[in-house]
């Protein structure tokens, strides 16, 4: 690599990444789906679809709907379960050098603990992302992430079960995100993923039925970027653990905004549905931006907002 070209290397807690761009949970499957478009080794890291203790069937259809500059989803965490994940999905991911972060979810605290125990020490798992913000579960999921006490309890419990780097994925559906962020940090989180989807809804005026069978779903995409940026910035000014910023990142410029606001890394989500090469385009773009602006490392950009 040319000596004067800026360094994209980043650390999130003890997770070392060759660049600060990862794929967001639930938007990149288990890595193999995009093989025709993306060499996984070029990513900073990948976060797999949310995993639960036992396989989940997911919600009935319709599960998604388009909204202005965004989309709603109510997938309901359809997933093969942690055992099948370790047995059938993880081996493929082991072929690559990038950190594999496993997003986990559950309805009860014990489920989170069980999944964590199974993943802890499993070869090929670089970190755990605790999803306390899934808006599509009727119990569990988001209900943890909107209560600072429950957040502290859950993070604490999971922390005890593993030495792996522990990321906590926060819900934006709260009055004060910094309170939840602090609770997670105090309970031993190594980093924060900000943000998950906002709870939204859409209606088919022809049938007068909800666009989603689940009625409400999680809003993602460019529409939520201003809210995500604001939360990253609020948290950056409150807690000291690293932030993985996400929410509507489609282009290089979007990603740069998140770094300036205080994110140490970013995750690309819905953009993968629109542009299968989005993460790579963004990585190239970040390098270009750093060069153009004479910034030698991504670290120098993080939290550099002039107010």
């Amino acid at each position, binding site marked *: 690599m040319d000596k004067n070209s800026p360094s994209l290397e980043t650390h999130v807690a003890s997770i070392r990444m060759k660049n600060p761009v990862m794929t967001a949970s*639930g*938007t*990149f*499957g288990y890595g193999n*789906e*995009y093989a*025709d*478009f993306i060499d996984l080794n070029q990513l900073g890291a990948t976060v797999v*679809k949310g995993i639960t203790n036992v396989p989940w*069937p*997911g919600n*009935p*259809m*319709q*599960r*998604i*709907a*388009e*909204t*202005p*500059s*965004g*989309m709603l*989803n109510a*997938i309901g965490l*359809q997933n093969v379960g942690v055992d099948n994940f370790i047995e059938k999905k993880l081996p493929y991911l082991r072929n690559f050098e990038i950190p594999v972060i496993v997003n986990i979810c559950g309805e009860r605290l014990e489920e989170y603990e069980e999944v964590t125990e199974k993943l802890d020490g499993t070869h090929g798992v670089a970190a755990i992302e605790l999803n306390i913000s899934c808006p599509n579960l009727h119990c569990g999921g988001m209900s943890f992430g909107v209560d600072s006490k429950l957040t502290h309890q859950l993070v604490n419990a999971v922390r005890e079960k593993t030495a792996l780097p522990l990321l906590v994925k926060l819900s934006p559906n709260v009055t004060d995100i910094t309170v939840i962020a602090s609770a997670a940090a105090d309970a031993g989180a190594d980093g924060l993923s900000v943000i998950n989807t906002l709870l939204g809804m859409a209606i088919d005026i022809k049938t007068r039925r909800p666009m989603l069978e689940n009625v409400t779903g999680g809003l993602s*995409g*460019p529409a939520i970027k201003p809210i995500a940026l604001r939360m990253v910035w609020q948290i950056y000014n409150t807690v000291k653990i690293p932030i993985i910023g996400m929410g509507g990142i*489609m282009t290089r410029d979007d990603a740069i905004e998140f770094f300036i606001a205080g994110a140490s890394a970013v995750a690309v989500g*819905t953009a*993968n*549905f*629109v*542009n*299968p*090469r989005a993460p790579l385009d963004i990585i190239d773009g970040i390098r270009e931006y750093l060069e153009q602006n004479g910034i030698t490392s991504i670290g120098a950009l993080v939290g550099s907002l002039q107010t």
Partner: protein
Amino acid sequence: MQPYISDQPKKFDLVTKILANEQVAQDHYLLRCVCPEIAEGALPGQFVHVLISFESAMLLRRPFTIYSVEGDQITILYQLIGAGTEVLSHLSCGDLLHVMGPLGNSFRIPPNLDPAIVVGGGAGIASLMLHAAALRKLGVRTLGLVGSVNAARLLTVVDLEGIDVETHISTDDGSVGHHGFVTEVLTQILEQPQVHELHNPAIYACGPHGMLRAVAKISRTYRVPTQLAMENRMGCAMGVCLGCVCKIRTPDGGFEYQRVCTEGPVFDSEDIVW
């Protein structure tokens, strides 16, 4: 034989100039563009995922079945449904389009098939044309049942007859052919196996949800193997968002949600839980 993991040709995301985008029937347009890599691998029943513009407030791509492949060109035949197809219909020759494909599985041809019965409701026929052409190339006798709201919307009958498909037209208003649903025509034909020489028939259908459900029922009654091309709302079309799923029977008597974009769009009729 499910889940339908077809050995997928490689996928490409191409930026291409529109060669033609013409109205071919009321509310229906035929769009042609150069997509060499997609044209090369495309199998009957597969689709492309089309991005209209990055500036648009319409975030998601739109899925359309590959209607025809000619050399390095493909065409799609689309119906005006909402804002996306509306914008698409306003694009003109030379405008850029992002076309991702070929995607999904494809129709399968059982041994000694005779005849193939393709049943298309509205734009549904678009998803069957490439398959009908392949069948004819293989010398398989093919009946084409085309249903439409009215004569003005009748599609592709010419194209079907051009490849010697014995077409049966039906319109809701009786302006052409049978006055009623295409499924009624299907029943009539299955009622007279001798007349129509149904030695070893199979049904291939695509169209509105209600029609597919009716076809499934009929095919169960007459015990004719049937493949349905499903059209669900899609996000990624890459198999990761799990937004496009269809309820599919599992051997254990239960069900699972399978991805129309990956295990589908073509499913065996009897596997679908309605």
